[in-house]
């Protein structure tokens, strides 16, 4: 249909980190080989871990169910390759904890073909059937949050959704995952939107794209068929434009209430790669067993966008693409919110949107010296939630966590990192806030 390509709309505050996307944004998605052993964590989503339905020593086909959801806030896991289940045991996970995982050894020369399941037809399926299918397909937010998608789509009693927002902003520097998906998986995205419109009951969908991806916006808006109430709209390039709340404000001018969810303003917001998965998997009744990630950063030789089996160990992935220079830091996700890993033995999970590798050159640019807060207010002007990070930082230093929550809305902080990014005194503000939130949550029980 039509595209709104004036990209002036945005949210207030935010920051402008260098985009660093040139290295990979023109590279087509490439298929990644199977690792000799894959590790599929049973908990790679927010919520309850999945329950294994295979035994050690069992042979499985590619796409076969490995674990089923345990309760509503939980999703299924599928085999990323045909092979043998070697072990079911604890394995290191990206967050530094040990997580129950399935070790899968692919057969030598295992092919790419995937088994078919029970198709879910968008025309005939009911919303509840689609929700169940999304859960069975193991789909979570691929943008990084890894929140089970079907939970978001369950409209509570007395609420309704009028607008479906497809999030193609990808505001994290370096990452080009969603960008490539929007160029190469257009049919899947449009099919996914059909499913999502049906479940949510929304009358229209908006695909929100940051202005640095005009090619994606043009391609998508040209492909939208006349019968689909979808518009493609561009928003200003600014971090964290891809945060749900910020995108909703930019596109609709609505503000999600403090402590509330997008559904409180009649919106549901789904990442574009997640949408593509829904559109690709549901018509075949399949589960998610691979995803697109960007592997990039100055420490990577063959930077690019890869279709990688979920469960591929990070070490294998990096060996495949080759490392350059003196690598000091590897993180999953983008540089603003990504998680630095301590070990390369962690697997690529459903929520891993990218791998960025820094060398000593980049880490040397990060100052070590911490100065006192000089009240420059850069953080205040950066915070998209309009908090007072300066004051909260001072309170955190003296352990006054309750005061932070009660007087300064600590719990509204979503750890976007904008404040730390601009702080000239190099105060680890976000780190303080994470810690304070953790302690307060613990105290509450």
């Amino acid at each position, binding site marked *: 249909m039509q595209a709104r390509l004036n990209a002036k709309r945005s949210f207030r505050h935010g920051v402008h*980190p260098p985009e660093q996307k040139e290295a990979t944004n023109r590279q087509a998605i490439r298929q990644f080989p199977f690792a000799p052993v894959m590790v599929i964590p049973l908990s790679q989503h927010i919520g309850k871990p999945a329950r294994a339905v295979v035994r050690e020593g069992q042979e499985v086909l590619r796409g076969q169910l490995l674990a089923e959801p345990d309760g509503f806030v939980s999703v299924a896991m599928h085999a990323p390759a045909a092979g043998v289940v070697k072990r079911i045991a604890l394995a290191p996970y990206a967050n530094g904890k040990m997580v129950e995982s399935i070790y899968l050894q692919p057969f030598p020369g295992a092919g790419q073909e995937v088994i078919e399941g029970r198709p879910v037809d968008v025309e005939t399926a009911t919303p509840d059937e689609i929700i169940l299918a999304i859960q069975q397909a193991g789909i979570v937010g691929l943008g990084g949050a890894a929140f089970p998608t079907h939970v978001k789509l369950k409209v509570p009693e007395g609420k309704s959704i*009028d607008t479906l927002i497809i999030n193609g902003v990808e505001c994290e520097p370096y990452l080009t995952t969603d960008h490539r998906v929007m160029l190469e998986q257009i049919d899947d995205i449009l099919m996914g939107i059909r499913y999502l419109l049906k479940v949510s009951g929304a009358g229209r969908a908006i695909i929100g794209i940051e202005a640095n991806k005009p090619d994606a916006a043009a391609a998508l808006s040209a492909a939208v068929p006349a019968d689909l109430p979808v518009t493609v709209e561009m928003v200003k390039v600014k971090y964290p434009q891809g945060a749900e*709340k910020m995108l909703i*404000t930019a596109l609709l*001018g*609505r*503000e*999600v*209430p*403090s402590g*509330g969810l997008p559904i409180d303003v*009649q919106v549901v917001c789904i990442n574009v790669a997640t949408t593509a998965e829904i559109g690709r998997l549901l018509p075949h009744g399949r589960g998610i067993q691979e995803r697109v990630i960007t592997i990039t950063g100055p420490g990577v030789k063959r930077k690019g966008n890869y279709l990688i089996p979920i469960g591929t160990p990070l*070490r294998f992935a990096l*060996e495949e693409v*080759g*490392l350059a220079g003196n*690598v*000091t*830091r*590897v993180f999953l996700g983008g*540089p*603003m*919110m990504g*998680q*630095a890993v301590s070990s*390369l033995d962690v697997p690529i999970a459903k929520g891993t949107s990218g791998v960025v590798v*820094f060398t000593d050159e980049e*880490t040397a*640019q*990060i*100052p070590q010296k911490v*100065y*006192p*807060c*000089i*009240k*420059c*207010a*850069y953080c*205040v*002007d950066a915070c*998209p*939630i*309009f*908090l*007072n990070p*300066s*004051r909260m930082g001072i309170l955190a230093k003296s352990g006054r966590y309750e005061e932070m929550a009660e007087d300064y809305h600590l719990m*509204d902080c979503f*750890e976007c*990192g904008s404040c*730390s*990014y*601009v702080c*000239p005194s*190099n105060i*680890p503000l*976000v*780190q303080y806030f*994470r810690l304070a939130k953790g302690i307060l949550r613990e105290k509450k029980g």
Partner: protein
Amino acid sequence: MSKINKTLEIRTSPHIVRGLSTDDIMRNVVWALLPVAGFAVYTFGLTALVMLSVATLSCVLSEHILCRLNGRESTIGDWSITITGLLYGLTLPPGLPLWMVAVGGFIAVGLGKFLFGGLGYNVFNPALVGRAFLQAAFPVAMTTWHPAFADGRFFSLDGATLTVPFMEPVYTAVTGATPLAAMKFAQQPTAAYDLVFGFTSGSAGETSALFILAGGAYLAVRNMLNWRIPAAIFATVALLSGILHAIDPQHYAGPMFMLFSGGLMLGAVFMATDMVATPLTNRGVIIYGVLIAVLTVMIRYWGGLPEGVMYAILFANAASRHIDRLVQPRVYGTLKQAKRGS
């Protein structure tokens, strides 16, 4: 395929920073102040050069020594004390006995900054604390002005400069009355042209509005100075003095005079904008600016002193954190959901 074995750093996100650090900001403020200091030397000659050097050095040394005495790492590397020293010097009359300059410098650092806990914790602008101390201790010396553009100023020092410590020189005559004093006590205005370009007498750094504004603009463009502060001060001073001048031009000087005389320019652009002692939000900053302007106008018109900028700023500094508490920004999502739907 090579085997990778790496020791990795774990730090929490974000993994990149903008790369503008506190010492960068401070260094830029020093750059912005240098032309103002240069013009002071040009106007008042060797006397100003020596006085500014002593002012700066006394502050830097005091900070270094106080840090060391307390077993802390010296903080002179963050450049903030250099700013304090320069600013402090620029508020003093050239020709002030150097021992007084040094004592005031020590007070500025010790009382104005160190006692509060150093950089970031001071409530007041330290430079003004030093100056306020001198004003109270040596009122005569602090209001004895050295004439601008005196012949031979680059080769000789003012007679009072080298006075022995704890001796106050005896002044026979006021050498060059400042435009503010001339207006206040003799109702004698000074041409605006002279004020803007700095051809008048006054404190070392007060006299050229042009260089002060240029320095301020340099910092504002780099977002190292909140332009709303001087803007709020100038607008409010102009408005108030405009009204009063219209009512009684004999007693109340007009806006041009009020803006460009005395320490208003220097105060509004460089003193009132000390990040540490100003409110955090833009709304707070405007309240703060208006407060300074109102106080300045009141002291100048009705107070006992010809100049009130310094006290006005000190007072507003003290109010900063309270202003912050009053005008906390509205947190995202706490809007009354009135205009919902579309």
